[in-house]
């Protein structure tokens, strides 16, 4: 490939080339107006990177503005590599979630691995040491020919990267639905710990300071899918420009240690990882945020391959790289640290006072652009959208149900969405760092901070079925469920990160889903004092014109004052009283029961009363803190009986349940998905106290039964043997993955 080496042979800027860069004609007009001339080839590449959906959020930005992002404990909200919250004792939690959907579909192992790599880098770029990782995965129908291959590859890739890097992967979610057949979702979340007054930012300060490149060398990884395919690059282009990057967790681990070491040594003024759109995005961001210009000399760039052009260097998405502005006089110290860790270190540019982004290569100026306008003047769309039509509430009496209650429970527990995900999380090292106080399988993971007693609780959730039926309620529900899960372990929820996965925003219905979900997320975040501190948007998740289910994954972090007081879902003793907090009306619309047992995805999803969420959650958290309850589980999809079964399976202790109240349809009572509910157990001695407390707090509470035996029994129904239930739960995934897998 010599074509790109000689400037004379750089492609002509034609309408086709502009289109291949994903720029619309009016967007190109905007560029011409902004710079007053035709852009060079390299400049066109830079614009395409800065103005694509991924970097500019041009379809979502307008609506993201409505999210609540502030609270007294928020140190850094959206706008940096990750959000930062104060967790007391001089410490901060740094976290974010990010998608790697498309690469994971193409190359599941590397796609998922580099997704994990990217989010870990976002966290340690801020000066935090990653202490936990989570992942939210959505696959197509298990029967779809590609699903098994994707599950195997994605899980191995997440484990392969996280295990080697040395972060415990402590939680997440996995769901299956035919609407993800052509677009799996891989949303990775990382949580780090830093000293609250030692957070590092992308904003550069100081003129004439060295801009330093660190980490692995630059190759032709991931350079622009669209341009790659274009004819100008000739034969063999594909061989030369892989769109999928290969992750190197080993290099990332070294990069982590080296970065934290030079940060501690006071060498770093500003730092930005090279993620999507690599050098372009990171350099522009550092300069623009600091009101400075940046001048890069690409002759100094450490390259993995020969003959790379300026265009390629600016757009490469090679992994495990960082850009920094180094403090005056600290270059040698910083370099020595990087050399010790065996990483590349090169001064590739300097800050200027010109507010220009200048790129030089082989004695030529390849780009000279106004740095602030590159970001600030990016297109912003108020795309047309239509509201999702409301659906009717489903009346349980109208349903024809042949399944018995025990039969329905067994089917649900053995179904892909509910079956145990042990096969997956056992491939993740969830114990490294020796702080995992609550392992996978509970409501939220809990990770001890340093030697304790404080801990962080974290969880991610979303119910896409709800979001599709009613984006606003679905958005609220996703936030509420995360908040509830953190509460259920005894945590005080502090802040959330969101990962908005949707179809094509140019379709008004899809845009309506995005807008609706964001409003719901905003409303819930506000009502629950659970601000949004970071996030990511992934649009165009569509195949053959059909979008995925709207999937705004929410990841939340909360704090526990004392992990010894943490609650878990397992029943602890026999003869304890089982109570449900919150009201059970038997809401079956969009429930798992309706979908899995009756094969209908219909009706309005359960409404979320945010005031009740808060009241009930605060009440449960108090009970936990005072040690009044022995087991706690939030009630979410699958309803009461699934929650009870999970508590029983986690302990091996069964329960004798009372008959459902006469006014509620039995199936609706046991499987309905009313929100704002928790199941708790108390000893006989504490029952009166808890009831009295509930009454004075105005919280509905009712007895469901008592623990004991090795079965779940409901009057008039066949007993459900816990061991057999557990066997169903544990066997689905291994059997599914077993046949013919590598």
């Amino acid at each position, binding site marked *: 490939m010599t074509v790109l080496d000689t400037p004379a042979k750089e492609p002509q800027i034609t309408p086709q080339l502009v289109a291949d860069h994903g720029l619309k004609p009016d967007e190109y007009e905007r560029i011409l107006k902004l710079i007053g001339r035709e852009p060079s080839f390299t400049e066109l590449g830079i614009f395409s990177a800065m103005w694509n959906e991924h970097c500019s959020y041009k379809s979502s930005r307008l609506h993201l503005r409505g999210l609540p992002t502030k609270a007294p404990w928020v140190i850094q909200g959206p706008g940096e590599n990750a959000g930062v919250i104060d967790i007391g004792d001089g410490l901060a939690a740094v976290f974010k979630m990010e998608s790697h959907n498309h690469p994971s579909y193409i190359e599941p192992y590397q796609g998922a691995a580099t997704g994990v790599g990217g989010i870990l880098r976002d966290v340690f770029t801020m000066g935090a040491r990653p202490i936990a990782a989570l992942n939210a995965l959505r696959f197509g129908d298990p029967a779809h020919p590609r699903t098994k291959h994707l599950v195997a590859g994605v899980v191995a890739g997440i484990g392969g990267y996280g295990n080697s890097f040395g972060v415990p992967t402590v939680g997440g979610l996995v769901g299956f639905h035919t609407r993800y057949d052509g677009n799996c979702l891989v949303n990775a979340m990382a949580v780090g710990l830093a000293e609250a007054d030692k957070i590092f930012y992308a904003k550069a300060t100081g003129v004439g300071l060295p801009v330093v490149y660190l980490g692995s060398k630059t190759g*032709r990884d991931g350079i622009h899918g669209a341009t790659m395919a274009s004819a100008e690059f000739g034969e063999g282009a594909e061989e030369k420009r892989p769109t999928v990057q290969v992750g190197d967790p080993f290099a990332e681990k070294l990069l982590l240690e080296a970065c934290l070491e030079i940060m501690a040594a006071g060498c770093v003024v500003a730092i930005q990882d090279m993620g999507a759109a690599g050098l372009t995005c990171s350099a522009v961001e550092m300069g623009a945020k600091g009101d400075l210009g940046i001048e890069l000399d690409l002759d100094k760039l450490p390259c*993995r391959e020969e003959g790379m052009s300026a265009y390629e260097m600016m757009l490469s998405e090679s992994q495990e790289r960082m850009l920094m502005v180094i403090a005056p006089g600290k270059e040698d110290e910083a370099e020595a640290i990087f050399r010790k860790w065996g990483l590349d270190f090169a001064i590739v540019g300097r800050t200027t006072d010109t507010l220009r982004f200048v790129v030089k290569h082989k004695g030529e100026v390849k780009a000279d652009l106004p740095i602030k306008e590159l970001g600030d003047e990016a297109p912003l769309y108020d795309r047309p959208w239509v509201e999702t039509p409301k659906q009717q509430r489903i009346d349980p009496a109208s349903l024809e149900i042949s399944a018995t209650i025990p039969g329905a429970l067994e089917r649900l527990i053995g179904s892909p969405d509910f079956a145990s995900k042990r096969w997956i999380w056992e491939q993740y090292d969830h114990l490294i760092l020796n702080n995992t106080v609550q392992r996978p399988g509970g409501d939220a993971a809990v990770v001890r901070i340093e030697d304790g007693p404080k801990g962080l609780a974290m969880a991610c959730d979303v119910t896409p079925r709800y979001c599709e039926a009613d984006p606003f309620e679905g958005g609220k529900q996703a936030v509420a469920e995360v908040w509830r899960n953190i509460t259920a372990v005894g945590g005080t929820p502090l802040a959330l990160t969101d990962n908005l996965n949707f179809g094509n925003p140019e379709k008004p219905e899809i845009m309506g889903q995005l807008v609706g979900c964001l409003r719901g997320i905003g409303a819930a975040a506000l009502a629950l004092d659970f601000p949004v501190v970071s996030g990511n948007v992934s649009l165009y998740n569509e195949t053959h014109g059909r979008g995925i289910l709207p999937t705004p994954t929410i990841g939340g972090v909360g704090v526990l004052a004392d992990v010894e007081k943490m609650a878990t879902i397992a029943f602890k003793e026999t003869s304890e009283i089982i109570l449900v907090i919150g009201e059970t009306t038997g809401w079956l619309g969009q429930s798992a029961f309706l979908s899995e047992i009756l094969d209908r995805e219909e009706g309005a999803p359960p409404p979320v009363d945010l005031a009740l969420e808060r009241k009930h959650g605060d009440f449960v958290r108090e009970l936990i803190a005072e040690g009044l309850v022995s087991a706690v589980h939030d009630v979410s999809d699958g309803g009461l009986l699934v929650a009870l079964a999970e508590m029983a399976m986690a302990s091996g202790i069964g329960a004798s349940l009372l008959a459902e109240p006469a006014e509620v349809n039995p199936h609706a009572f046991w499987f309905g998905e009313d929100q704002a509910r928790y199941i708790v157990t108390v000893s006989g001695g504490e029952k009166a106290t808890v009831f009295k407390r509930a009454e004075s707090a105005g919280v509905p509470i009712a007895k469901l039964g008592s623990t004991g035996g090795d079965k779940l029994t409901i009057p008039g129904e066949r007993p459900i043997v816990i061991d057999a239930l557990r066997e169903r739960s544990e066997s689905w995934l291994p059997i599914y993955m077993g046949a013919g897998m590598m």
Partner: protein
Amino acid sequence: MKARVLVTLKSAVLDPQGKAIEGALRSLGVPGVASVRQGKVFDVELDGGDSAKAEATLKEACEKLLANTVIETYRIEFVG
């Protein structure tokens, strides 16, 4: 019938293993190694002796399983 399938990373794809091995050889004092790239080799025994059929089988195996053509290329050789 015996065949050998070589699966290697495309030339522009990062090969972290190869890179680590280069470094190790250098520090072990093995001289003169300019670069190393690591791949996989599959020694395959096939039923029957029809080499055209065997080639077709192996090609199918590569496309479906042994190689991910997004990042890897493969080569089929007959050994005897």
